[in-house]
């Protein structure tokens, strides 16, 4: 168990030629904690998540995930680290449309031996089928995801993020396309599938979802650049 799930220190990020978008002095999430981060559209929520995932690099400051300073890793190393330890639900799901349900769900395991090992010998396809069934996806497993409804695609994206019990689950506005009832049901389902050791960072503009999480905070409270 790591000491810190996420630790940001003097983090500063700006797009080239533009003013700083993020300026965060210090921010920490403990292992196993579920955190709701609220922010309005364009406030830099997704950029912050991309920094935490190692997809983007800060201008300055330190991003540590599961006690690993991401700046110490190469590009390939960050990809492997992400695959082994992080489950990500993208706002636009980022599924590969030509792949089947199963192939999309098991995709990250192909590059994540540590995460695959957590299946304890269960075949990834079988685990994916079990997870999809639990999430209410009843379509044939070989159906290309392009043929699924948005709601079902969302569940497939969740299944992909959950498969192999990642240490850190990151969700970026995953309920933006859902009505309120469906949103609540989705969040409850998501949290019910997480293990005790899984840390959750859920980002949304919808403040009403805060009640599902251990801790809730607004990005504006963290971001000095937003306050300036």
């Amino acid at each position, binding site marked *: 168990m790591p000491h810190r799930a996420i630790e940001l220190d003097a983090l500063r990020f700006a*797009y080239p030629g533009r003013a700083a978008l993020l300026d965060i002095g210090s921010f920490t999430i403990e292992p196993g904690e579920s955190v709701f981060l609220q922010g309005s559209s364009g406030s830099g929520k*997704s*950029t912050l*998540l*991309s920094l935490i*995932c190692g*997809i*983007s690099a800060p201008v300055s400051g330190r991003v540590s995930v599961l006690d690993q300073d991401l700046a110490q890793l190469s*590009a*390939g190393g960050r*990809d*492997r680290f*992400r*695959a*082994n330890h992080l489950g*990500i639900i*993208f*706002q*636009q799901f*980022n*599924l*590969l449309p*030509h*792949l089947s349900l199963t*192939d999309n769900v098991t*995709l*990250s395991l*192909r*590059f*994540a*031996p540590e995460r695959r090992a957590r299946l304890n010998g269960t075949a990834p396809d079988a685990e994916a089928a079990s997870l999809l069934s639990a999430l209410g996806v009843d379509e044939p497993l070989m159906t290309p995801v392009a043929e699924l409804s948005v709601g079902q695609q969302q569940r497939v994206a969740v299944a*992909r993020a959950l498969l192999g019990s990642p240490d850190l689950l*990151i969700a*970026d506005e995953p309920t933006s396309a859902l009505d309120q009832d469906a949103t609540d049901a989705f969040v409850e389902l998501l949290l019910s599938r997480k293990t005790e050791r899984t840390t959750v960072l859920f980002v949304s503009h919808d403040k009403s979802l805060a009640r599902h999480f251990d801790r809730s905070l607004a990005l504006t409270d963290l971001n000095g650049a937003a306050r300036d």
Partner: protein
Amino acid sequence: MTDGLRSILWLTWQSLRARRGTVLLAVVAIGISVALVLAVERLRSDARSSFTNTLSGADLLVGARGSPLNLMLYSIFRLGDATSNLSWESFKHFEQDSRVAWAIPLSLGDAHRGYRVLGTDLRYFEHYRFADNQPLAFSSGERFAGADEAVLGAEVAAELNYSLGTELVISHGIGAVSFENHDDQPMRVVGILKRTGTPVDRTVHVSLAAIDAIHGDGAHDHDDHEEHGDHEEHGDHEDHGDREEHSDHEEHGDHEEHGDHEEHGDHEDHGDHEEHGNHEEHGDHEEHGDHEEHGDHEDHGDHEEHGDHDEHGDHEEHGDHEEHGDHEEHAEHDLHAGHDHGAITAAIFGLKSRTAALRLQRDINEYEGEPLQAAIPGATLAQLWSLLRVGEQALFAVSGCVVFAGLIGLLSTLLSSLDQRRRELTILRSVGAGPRTVFATLLCEAVAIGAMAGAFGIALTYIGLELARPLVLERFGFALAAGRPGWFDLAVLAGVVVASAAVAIVPAWRLYRHSVADGLQPRL
């Protein structure tokens, strides 16, 4: 196989499957260009091999003066036509040269349903060799034994569905369609040769006597009239310029079989003996009586030039026609070397010693009797290859350019799909596929396309050549070998694979350098 490699192959397969339409077009485009390269090479090598294999063991080709290459093309490969003939006397002259081991006369110029007819004699079957000194062999039947018999090449028999006993009619000229058929001289198939893979397969072989008969030519080497003691007995022979007919009368007892003498009634118009009819066909005295009707035989002079009575020394012994009634016997005699014929198209000479080839070639080229030329087959083929080399190189250059264009098309396809691929490959990166995996996947796709295109090109080449084989044989006179892909094909395949990978390096490198964040439009 490592997990990484397995993942790359899996991603490659999934990507190719998802883009099967585009991939198929790329494979077809490059495959066709590969097929072009391979076909050019196969045609080149098979043409050389076929030409080289067509004639073996011969030392000289002899024909009327002109181009040695043309002589070889028309006499051996049945391509084109002879511009002039070689007189029988000249052939005999050199055939009897002490340096000559054997000689085969060749008479061309007629056809049967598009297949060339070759008039020759039995020496053809004894001495003609193809490929590695292989003799001609019969799949059925035997050599011709009479002027009304024919031996077919394997292709002729197979294509025309002829068998032993089939009757065929020879047409004047070498076209597939002729309005001048020698219907009065039907030939009977008595033999079918085994396949040789050379123009022999597409040849109808008949005796020189048959050619003479068809064209109304005669053997011209005969005694003076005075030496034919029976001429007076045969009516107006002394008025008939065509002495060959006289000698034939002596040899043919079956007069009733030669009733068509009138068909050769234009004897009066021909000053030289070569243009006169077939002795075998004109046997009876009664028919010679008809000659009187044609008159003007006095106009056919220079009989003395067509002597060679030595070869017909038995003519004098046949004063009485009735005593020489065996037509078959005569025909058999006619098919062998000793008998005389009209002009021939060319001749193949085998020498006792190859070292004599150059000297005999010079003697033939300087022969004063008539303008002749002798060609050494190997040297003439080398001349042919030399002539063709520029064309071959041009074809290779063109087909190489086509392959290059195909690969540029592949590059264009890869680059144009890069935007779409960028997002896809970024998603792969976001779920853990490293930049090397992405680079390798794109490269692997290109290699797979190149390999499939190469394999398709090879298949297309061999299927296409198999289908084109009869056409090539018919039009160009050489047989395409039925072969399996060889080292050259594999080398081209490897070249295309490597070139495809090289072409893909640019887009793969761009994706390698591409950050995950760019592809995800800084949103997760």
